[in-house]
């Protein structure tokens, strides 16, 4: 989005729209409402007892008029007490936070070298990094598991954190940002005899906060929603991240605990949505940053 919303932009502007634009906006709003209905349904269902979720006919729009006192936290209670979902929530947080910190550390160090230092093989190595962005990692899920086992990392959260820290996109994004930082800042620090590590830590990191935020948010989405890797690597019930836990609940052949599944799903979806509301700009920038100059 270009610029900030001007204060002058308010409802009075609606009057200046052409009829076509008004109709267009109305149609888009209706489409958006339908588009978001599944999310509303999930929100609503997670506050209802299991028997209500599968009412026949399904409750569609009468929810709006149903009293809120129908709502209960029973499904969440089932999820937490019977399925230990809070522990899975914690595991998801650990993997996500660890993965983000790892990414920032590894990628910003690497991007610093590519942005400011001369060394043999620099452009070749950078092209190599860009090339790995296109590698479809999922196709190698079997050897990946074997390598993880060989390293003794199976059933270990590190097996999810370490590979995530190696983000080619992260190096690319940060380098794009670094080359825009005036070199004079760095040069003067060099003349004062600071080492590169010190400059990276004291000068570049504080200056590149916006880029680090954008990268964090992109990684956050990736890590939080990762499913295949945790499913094959994690074996202990206590280490399951949220998506794996949902899959475990869902693999009950009889009496799937749909109430607990939906409540957990709602919790899982809520976290990135809240983050998106707060960091919307960084989200969009992080995603499109690799495209724009």
């Amino acid at each position, binding site marked *: 989005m270009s610029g900030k919303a001007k204060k002058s932009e308010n409802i009075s*502007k609606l009057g200046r729209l052409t009829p076509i634009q008004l109709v267009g*906006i109305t149609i888009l709003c209706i489409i958006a409402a339908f*588009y978001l209905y599944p999310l509303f349904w999930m929100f609503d269902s997670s506050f209802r007892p299991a028997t209500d979720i599968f009412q026949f006919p399904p409750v569609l729009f009468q929810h709006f008029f149903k009293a809120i006192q129908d709502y209960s936290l029973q499904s969440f209670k089932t999820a937490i007490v019977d399925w230990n979902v809070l522990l899975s929530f914690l595991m998801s947080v650990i993997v996500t936070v660890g993965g983000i910190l790892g990414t920032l550390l590894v990628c910003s160090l690497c991007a610093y070298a590519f942005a400011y230092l001369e*060394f043999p093989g620099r452009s070749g190595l950078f092209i190599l990094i860009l090339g790995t962005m296109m590698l479809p990692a999922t196709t190698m899920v*079997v050897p990946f598991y074997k390598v993880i086992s060989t390293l003794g990392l199976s059933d270990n959260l590190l097996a999810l954190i370490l590979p995530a820290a190696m983000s080619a996109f992260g190096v690319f994004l940060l380098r794009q940002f670094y080359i825009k930082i005036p070199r004079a800042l760095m040069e003067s620090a060099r003349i*004062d005899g600071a080492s590169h590590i010190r400059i990276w830590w004291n000068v570049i990191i504080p200056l590149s906060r916006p880029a680090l935020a954008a990268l964090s948010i992109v990684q956050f989405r990736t890590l939080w929603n990762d499913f295949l890797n945790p499913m094959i690597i994690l074996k202990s019930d206590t280490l399951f991240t949220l998506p794996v836990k*949902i*899959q475990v609940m869902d693999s009950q*052949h009889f009496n799937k605990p749909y109430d607990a599944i939906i409540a957990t799903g709602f919790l*899982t979806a809520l976290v990135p949505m809240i983050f998106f509301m707060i960091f919307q700009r960084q989200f969009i920038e992080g995603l499109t940053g690799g495209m724009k100059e």
Partner: protein
Amino acid sequence: MVSSNARPRVRRKKNPISFMAIKDAANAYGMIAPFFILLGVFSFYVFYSGFRMSVSDAQGISAGDYIGFQNYKDLLYADEFASAEFWRAVKVTFKFMFGCLATQVPAAFLLAFVLNQIPLLRIRVILRSAFFLPVLINTVVISILFRMFFLRDTGIINHVLGLLHLPNNIDWLMNSEWALTLLVIVSFWQWTGFHMVYFLSQLQTIDPTLYEAARLDGASPVKVLFRITLPLMRPAITFVMVTSAIGCLQMFDMVFILFPNASYGPGGVAKTLVAYIYDQGFSQEFLTGFASAIGWLTFLIIMLVSLLQLKMLGLGKHDEA
């Protein structure tokens, strides 16, 4: 603090192997080392070891014996059962990819185009967020939600169809003709907003004076779209097409969860390539060598598709995907 001007400065010749250059290079290698160690282990070594496994009859974690390209031959033509399953997976995966690209890219472009016409920034941001929300949600959660919608007796879809007096007794999840369509629908819901954001940000980089000039020259809106907007959107279109094709060809989570009990659709009709890898490598048989061969073939297919796309769409200047 002694100022650096105190000492007479000796002008060094630009010597490629000066002490400083060596020190800088050593520093640089130290700084890129963590990334490249991880890259070496979790990317290159994994691909290498995948290849090593694919030419062996490895099962589980035992290494197995070297059997040459037998796995590949079996998959491509030699083993009747395996090759039938492999080619079916290829077909399913490609159909899914075409279905996704054909529906999501035009819809995302249209959405972005219309949103971009809205003069009120706030409404634009709100609508953009609304279409972007599904992107944030875990595929596992989305797939379970949609499975519940598609259920025959208690699902919303059949209920609404009933309200509209349309046939409402179709068992969507158990109907092999619908399996792929369901996946394309769910994928559409999840990803269209994602592509829209890329198109929107690219549309906003277009210089408005171009449109002004075209309007003064009396160009029709259709002409403006085809002569100005679309050519300038090429980097974004290329980027979205290539990245979403790579994503579609690796689809697994959705098909694994959407159909109950990991059935991949009735009789496994919707088993994609990665689902096939997972099935062979992590199911009861643990045919890790065989599954690695499927993985390598899938990898080659994906690379080929990406290169073809880049060739056809033209490599833009800034879209290093």
